[in-house]
């Protein structure tokens, strides 16, 4: 009888969680659409929201009159690819952060913070500066293949090194992970500096762009290169949610619950490397999205990965679209590198996280 009496309260508990998820998805989607319209209308040429909507519907329906206009040209060839890139990269970075935090069982893990992004940036820099010397004409013909692939390998190598150093006997030490991340970041930074030393003027400008992070180089070609890498990760990530939840109890516990732990860890590492590598290849190093976004989602919706992963993707897209809007408009007609903005917001947030740490962080 007690079981029958308790059942409704359990059902109520889980129903309220589902309701909050639905509200979150609805709210975030609406926010993203509003932000997108504002973002598409802002810039050197101001375009009213009504006109933005007309161009977008004209684009979808193939209305020739609307598409021939100047506004359509600006929106469709400059601003839409930039918006799409911001959404993809924001989602990729936030999801990578959530994945790494689940994998390391610690809310402080972040691809930017622990050297994964620096590793990817080093490899990207390597292809920029030495690419044509080593790979010859192949590099000149396929810059959009070599660069993302290099960044992916760099990200993968850093993640694997990090995991190998920080994990002993199935236990991952957070202190070791953060310290190893510092060392990895410094090492990658030193080598990137060395690359800057041997590069010519044009290469140096490209390198600076990569280390600061910017969406200003957005184009449909970049969108076409990054989408096939990031989109599969975003679509596949929900399938890891159940396993990541179990993994939070411990590796042995996850195994006891029927989770193929090694396969899960490999999949998560691979996804982080692909997502971060593609992001770095397209926009350079953009820090702190991976730590700020999942943390906010956990505060609002709890740590269940089935909620955390999709909502992190949405909020990551919102955050980076918003940050890019600021970066483009704050010092117009000039433009701030977006990496500077996210670091300026994210670093204080991270310090605040450390200040209010409780038993959740000392592991």
């Amino acid at each position, binding site marked *: 009888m007690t079981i029958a009496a308790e*059942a409704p309260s359990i059902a109520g508990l889980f129903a309220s969680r589902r309701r909050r998820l639905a509200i979150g998805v609805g709210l975030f989607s609406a926010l993203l659409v509003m932000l997108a319209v504002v973002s598409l209308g802002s810039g050197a040429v101001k375009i009213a929201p009504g006109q933005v909507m007309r161009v977008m519907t004209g684009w979808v329906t193939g209305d020739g009159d609307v598409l021939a206009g100047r506004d359509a040209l600006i929106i469709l060839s400059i601003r839409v690819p930039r918006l799409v890139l911001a959404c993809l990269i924001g989602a990729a970075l936030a999801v990578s952060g959530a994945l790494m935090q689940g994998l390391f069982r610690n809310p402080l893990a972040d691809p930017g913070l622990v050297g994964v992004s620096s590793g990817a940036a080093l490899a990207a820099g390597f292809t920029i500066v030495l690419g044509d010397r080593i790979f010859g004409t192949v590099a000149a013909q396929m810059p959009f293949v070599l660069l993302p692939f290099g960044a992916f390998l760099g990200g993968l190598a850093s993640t694997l090194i990090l995991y190998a150093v920080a994990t002993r006997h199935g236990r991952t030490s957070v202190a070791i992970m953060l310290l190893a991340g510092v060392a990895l970041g410094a090492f990658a930074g030193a080598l990137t500096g060395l690359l800057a030393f041997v590069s010519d003027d044009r290469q140096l400008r490209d390198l600076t762009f990569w280390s600061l992070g910017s969406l200003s180089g957005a184009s449909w070609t970049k969108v076409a290169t990054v989408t096939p890498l990031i989109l599969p990760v975003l679509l596949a990530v929900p399938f890891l949610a159940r396993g990541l939840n179990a993994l939070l109890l411990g590796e*042995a*516990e996850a195994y006891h*619950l*029927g989770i*193929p732990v090694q396969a899960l860890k490999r999949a998560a590492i691979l996804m982080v490397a692909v997502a971060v590598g593609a992001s770095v290849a397209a926009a350079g190093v953009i820090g702190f999205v991976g730590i700020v976004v999942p943390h906010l989602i*956990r505060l609002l919706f*709890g740590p269940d990965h089935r909620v955390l992963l999709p909502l992190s993707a949405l909020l990551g897209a919102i955050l980076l679209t918003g940050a890019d809007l600021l970066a483009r408009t704050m010092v117009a007609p000039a433009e701030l590198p977006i990496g500077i903005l996210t670091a300026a917001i994210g670093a204080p947030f991270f310090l605040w996280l450390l200040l209010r740490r409780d038993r959740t962080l000392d592991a």
Partner: protein
Amino acid sequence: MTTLLEADRIGVAYGRHKPVDAVSLSVDAGEVLVVVGPNGAGKTTLLKLLTGELAPSTGTIRLDGELLSAIPAWKLASQRAVMAQASRLAFPFTVAEVVRIGIDSVGRALARTMRERIIAGALDAADIAHLAARSYQTLSGGEQQRVQFARTFAQLKAGRTSSLRQVLFLDEPVANLDLSHQIALMESAAGLARTGVAVIAVLHDLNLATTFADRILVMSGGGLHALGAPGAVITRASVREVFGVDLCREADGTGGLPVVLPQHYAEMRLERGAA
């Protein structure tokens, strides 16, 4: 009674160090087997071998006739549940969520109402229904231990829909519990045993062990020291030999079971003082 879990001369070696060496045992469905022994005797390692978490370097383990190493993790999860020693969480899951994670894999095919009924039943069995909405991290060590018990309890109940031949492993499940919850938890485990689940528990409290065990396995130095009925295995001589203390006495009113009390130490001191 049929044999559910069978270990044949299993052992594990790290170089020359052998935490478990040539242990053989078999456990029947519905039986409560309690493993006791001093610190470092290899109890937890033995449990890790029997749960499949650790592969034995020598010997074989069979669960329901099948080689343990040949059973995939997802299938094994419906046949056995494991409550490990105290575990912490880095993220603020609620109690109900922690228990739900226990059946997310095993019970994925079950209807939602069924899953919710299993979770509610497990919360009741561990006496934590009133904590369901609390964050796991804010609980005391004993309460966290009860949540972990509820999680394994739910896993068995969910797994029962696909396998009736189940084993429950408990590694020092009552270490942080108050007296009434120690007894309540062991009673819940015994209740599962009455439905056919084989229960294998590592305990430190010899009195609790003799109370709830059908058989007791005494481990010492990585090997099997004795295995048998509580009254036959826990004796003044064996406790003195394995644990190095002379605290075990015959007692009245316990149905012939021995009683191990630290108070007997005071008694020994008095005798020594008089002599």
